[in-house]
């Protein structure tokens, strides 16, 4: 085991952590503001990947297809999220956790089968645009260029979220809603509109994650369940509703998984669960302060 | 019966209890008074183990109970009622008190024995003395506010404590209902010799029932003694006047 292997695995893990972060950030925002455990988040991610695939295929799998897919797929998922929030979720804000969970779980089942009906069950794949194809050398390790792209997109999204949440009026309202819903109502702000906004934004992030992962993996039904559990664990160990905790735990998960694959390939699948289990046991309320 | 010495507690840098000292002699009614935010509820939660103290000592019957788990403290003979109604909302009135009696007798982990007939006599006796017997099979959430508040105390009595803590027992009650609680406290103290520690806003009630009074101001015990001494204490007057002005 040399330094180059370790470095490249760290690099892969970090870029994977970025995907985790983009998806989980949406989930944690929804958690924090709406106080809903959104099981459908994985389904939105899957929709992002499938829609990106369709756009890219429609445009002949060329470079334009990828960039357009990256732009449109998240927006489409955002629109779907908005419909879900206005059409269903807003009726169950007063119910307990279990009911909210089960409602979003019903969407997992529905979306899962709808995707099967629309796209079929065979595996799909999508091309990486020429400019991001190939690899580059770093300290003697050959690293895929696309992962470097992810490592740029991740921090950009994080910065964007930071800017939105702490510098804009709307973002401040979102944070206020997360910590003290009554106060926001007293100030005369319609908190249900904030909910719609945050859910749509969470959906956009899930769709973005799906569109970003699409060129690097086989797009198939079932990708919703896998990412969902990871995102749940990441969000909980980061501290529910805390975007920065999510960033930290995403990186821990991504890197932990990558090194797991390197050192114990046969049982790497259990690494995320062990990380999550251990972190939850030693720090039950999450790494950073929870939003509520 | 209960001694609290140099108790301290801070939340996120805010010093809620800075120096609380308290003595509850056996068989007496002691009231803790103080302006809003003086730390009375925090003090109660520290005594009953719902909060962990940063430093200081709480002794009960010459035993150290500082920072024990709430359920252990209860088994030592210290039971409390809550300021906000804190009952078992889906259970009947009878079952609400029965839970306390069952727990007191350590029967709460018995698996194969119907609960329905268990310790009912003892439970009914508590309901009887609180005038709740006619509601025994009703769901407790169907009771009036005043009756729920009485049930709140009855549950605490169900665990047959040596020392009873009452957190604002008359908060939100009408004058009639308040009188009912006052009589109840007197009865428990005089007829059953129960030691009682209470917090209360109603000063008439405090001076009516309490044999000793402790004054808490900004988390600090500023006076403790007989009611008439407290009434004439300069620092107490300034604490209260300070708040009013």
């Amino acid at each position, binding site marked *: 085991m040399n330094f180059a292997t370790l470095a490249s695995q760290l690099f892969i893990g970090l870029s994977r952590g970025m995907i985790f972060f983009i998806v989980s950030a949406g989930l944690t925002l929804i958690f924090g503001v709406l106080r809903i*455990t959104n099981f459908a988040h994985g389904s939105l991610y899957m929709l992002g990947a499938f829609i990106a695939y369709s756009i890219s295929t429609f445009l002949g799998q060329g470079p334009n297809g990828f960039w357009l897919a990256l732009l449109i797929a998240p927006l489409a998922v955002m629109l779907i999220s908005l419909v879900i929030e206005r059409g269903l979720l807003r*009726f*169950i804000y007063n119910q307990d*956790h*279990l*009911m909210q969970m*089960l*409602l979003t*779980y*019903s969407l997992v*089942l*529905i979306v*899962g*089968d*709808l995707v*099967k009906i629309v796209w079929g069950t065979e595996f799909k794949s999508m091309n990486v645009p020429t400019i991001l194809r190939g690899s580059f050398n770093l300290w003697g390790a050959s690293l895929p260029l696309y992962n470097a792209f992810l490592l740029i997109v991740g921090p950009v999204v994080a910065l964007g979220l930071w800017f939105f949440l702490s510098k804009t009026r709307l973002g401040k309202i979102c944070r206020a809603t997360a910590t003290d819903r009554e106060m926001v109502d007293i100030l005369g702000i319609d908190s249900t509109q904030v909910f719609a906004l945050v859910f749509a934004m969470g959906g956009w992030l899930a769709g973005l994650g799906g569109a970003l992962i699409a060129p690097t993996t086989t797009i198939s039904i079932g990708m919703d*369940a896998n990412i969902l559990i990871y995102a*749940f*664990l990441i969000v*909980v160990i980061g501290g*529910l509703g805390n975007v920065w905790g999510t960033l930290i735990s995403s990186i821990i998960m991504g890197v932990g998984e990558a090194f797991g694959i390197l050192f114990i390939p*046969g*049982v790497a*699948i259990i690494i995320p*669960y062990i990380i999550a*289990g251990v972190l*939850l*046991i030693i720090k*039950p309320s999450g790494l950073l302060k929870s939003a509520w | 019966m209960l001694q609290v010495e140099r108790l301290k507690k801070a939340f996120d840098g805010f010093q809620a209890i800075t120096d609380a000292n308290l003595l509850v002699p056996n068989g007496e009614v002691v009231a803790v008074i103080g302006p809003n935010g003086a730390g009375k509820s925090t003090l109660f939660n520290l005594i*009953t183990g*719902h909060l962990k103290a940063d430093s200081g000592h709480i002794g009960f019957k010459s035993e150290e109970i500082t920072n024990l*788990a*709430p*359920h252990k*403290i*209860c*088994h030592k003979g210290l*039971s*409390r009622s809550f300021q906000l109604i804190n*009952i*078992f*909302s*889906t259970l*009947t009135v009878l079952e609400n008190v*029965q*839970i306390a009696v*069952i*727990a*007191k007798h350590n029967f*709460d*982990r*018995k*698996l194969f024995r*119907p*609960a*329905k007939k268990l310790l009912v006599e003892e439970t009914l006796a508590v309901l009887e003395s609180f005038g709740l017997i*006619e509601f025994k099979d009703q769901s407790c959430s169907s009771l009036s506010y005043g009756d729920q508040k009485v049930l709140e105390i009855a*549950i605490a009595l*169900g*665990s047959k404590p040596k020392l009873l803590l009452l957190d604002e027992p008359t908060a939100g009650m009408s004058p009639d209902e308040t009188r009912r609680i006052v009589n109840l406290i007197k009865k428990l103290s005089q007829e059953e010799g129960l030691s009682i520690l209470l917090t209360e806003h109603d000063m008439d009630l405090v001076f009516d029932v309490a044999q000793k009074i402790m004054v808490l101001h900004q988390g600090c015990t500023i006076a403790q003694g007989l009611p008439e001494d407290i009434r004439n204490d300069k620092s107490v007057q300034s604490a209260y006047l300070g708040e009013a002005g």
Partner: protein
Amino acid sequence: MSTNSSSSLILQEKFRTYLGLGMAVAGILILLAIPSLISPYYVYLLATIFTTALLATSLNLVLGYGGLLHLHHAVFYGIGAYTVAIIMTKTSWPFAIAVVLGPLVAALIALVIGWFCVRLRGLYFGMLTLALGQLVWAIVYRWNALTNGDNGIHSIPVPEFLTSVNSVYYTTLLVLIVSLVILYLIIKSPFGLTLIATRDNPMRSESLGINVKRHRLTAFVIAGFFAGVAGVLFILVERSVAPSLLFWNKSAEILIMCLMGGLTVFMGPTLGAAILVVLSMIVGLYTEYWLLVLGLLLLILVLFLPQGILGYLLKSRNNKKPSMRGEN
């Protein structure tokens, strides 16, 4: 209260008890006679319902009565099943040992997982059950030497007398009835009453001297044990096992059964299990999109019938007779 009305109340209560008992006996008699009346496929379907009903009822001890957001109960079901499967295929131990060890191993794993989980509350409790449950799933999925991994274990040998459909039917029926009676007694015991109290108001329970964490852990372990029993039944019915039995969406399915029947009613999960098993069979005849139907059904349930079918029926009956106490 006058003696007259109280004695008539007692009579009424006795009458209701006898009526309930009578209905139960009649139901059991019908269930005993059924295998000779219907085709083996339906007998098999009923055995599946019995197994699932026990699984769902065991979850409800923790979920409905304990009020704990237990999101991964299928783990203990899977452990029970895998324990039997592994013993019967990898060792020469007798079947009886496998049957006894199945629920015990499930209870042991429940003790370990529960020990960590009961220190957390609400959503965090749920998430930790999910994380640790998925950890168990991942181990089962990957430990090829022991569990045969993704492929699962098939053609599990069972004693001769348990090979016919009818004998499986009667065994699962008997085990279900015995288990339901035990679970019912537990719920009506001081332990059960206290469990409901810790659900309604954990803080108050604590200050009455109840060790809430220990109480919850006990309930968790009991539920795990009976899920393990259901897992043993699953082996009898299917004679095979695969890791999907303890994947998290299986747990979600059990949650839906409990919700469908009603979380606050003892027989609710049994009804929910029966409905879901039958529905999946019927829908499966017409379309491959059973999950879509299930999703729509769940959506309707959450939006319009959150108290479940039995919960709704009981409530509307109680509303007609205001003197009776609502279970809600």
